[in-house]
């Protein structure tokens, strides 16, 4: 049974129904958050680690969540930030410059046993990896998940105009990569 965000929050704030409400919340949002993180990190194991941390963070902070933004927008924001932090930590650990992530993630993609795409899909993923982190996130959210610019704006805390420009730049870069490789 899916509860509304308001009902979930009410039940979470009640000590007796807290665990039940959180379990429902995880069931309701796990897939959306998983796929959002997975498209950033590409590898299942890394995604699993980050997703669990995201839910722990949500658990810790949900009680103080003020419904100034929508619940899923807030959770997406946590997931995005955690994923970017994870990538930066990995890059730092491996001594990779922060702006050069494509090789590291390409290895991540190749080592992932849960990649089910064909050669063209692999090529598309490599093209997406040539984008800077934030542009990559914008492209994934728009191209694959068809999230509205207004919602993306609330999640990424960026203006709609900047997001539109970012998406169009991303599309052009990917097209160039696909035609030249």
């Amino acid at each position, binding site marked *: 049974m899916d509860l509304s965000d308001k009902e979930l929050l009410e039940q979470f704030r009640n000590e007796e129904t807290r*665990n039940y409400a*959180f*379990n429902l919340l*995880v*069931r309701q949002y*796990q*897939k959306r958050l*998983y*796929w959002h993180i*997975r*498209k950033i990190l*590409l590898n*299942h194991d890394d995604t*699993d680690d980050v*997703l*669990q941390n995201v*839910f*722990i963070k949500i*658990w*810790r902070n949900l009680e103080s969540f003020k419904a100034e933004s929508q619940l899923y927008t807030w959770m997406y924001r946590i997931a995005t930030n955690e994923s970017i932090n994870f990538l930066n930590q990995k890059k730092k650990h491996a001594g990779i410059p922060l702006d050069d992530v494509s090789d590291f993630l390409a290895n991540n993609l190749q080592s*992932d046993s*849960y*990649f*089910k*795409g*064909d050669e*063209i*899909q*692999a090529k*598309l*993923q490599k093209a997406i990896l040539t984008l800077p982190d934030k542009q990559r996130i914008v492209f994934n959210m728009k*191209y*694959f998940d*068809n999230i509205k610019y207004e919602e993306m704006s609330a999640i990424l805390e960026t203006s709609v105009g900047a997001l539109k420009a970012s998406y*169009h730049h991303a*599309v*052009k870069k*990917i*097209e160039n990569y*696909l*035609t030249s490789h």
Partner: protein
Amino acid sequence: MNNDNDIHDDDLKGMSPHLSKAGDNNPFKAGTDYFEDFASKIKSRIDELEEIKNEAPVLSSIPNYTPFDTPAGYFDELPTLVQQRCIENKSSTSILEWLTLLIKPRFAIPFITMVFIAFAGINFMNKNAQAPNTETAAENTFEDQLSTIDEATIIETLTADESSENKSVSNDDNSIENYLIDNHLEEYNLRNNL
């Protein structure tokens, strides 16, 4: 038309009396402005696809799906796993986390205010506690001064004071005696007169 409906209702009553009682109201609801926005949503989606087709023909020729998979049963097990980790995590909130909380302005400002109030309170109480002790402080300083003076000097000063007192007393006795002699008053007469 009504006639057809009546026949249908009669058939339904015969076939399933419970179902016929349920009525034919649609129990599903969409958002209030869902159908108002629907056409414009579809239009903008088509425009976006057309735009990508023109801007990036190779990209738009690739099937649009997420080429990733998950281990079997992953999403069935995840909620329990997350719940367990949350409970474990709840019981081990570290000191570091408390300290990092203090860095946040919403915790730091009340904390600093509390520390300031506590410090001011302690300071105030200390001042109050010191005020009645001014006499003892003065005594202490007098004793300190005495300890710096040589003992012989103190004795000398004290004995000098005593001898001057004795001198004044003996001077008084002598003047009375002289008065008695000068006026020819004898002890016997004085006693009789008294």
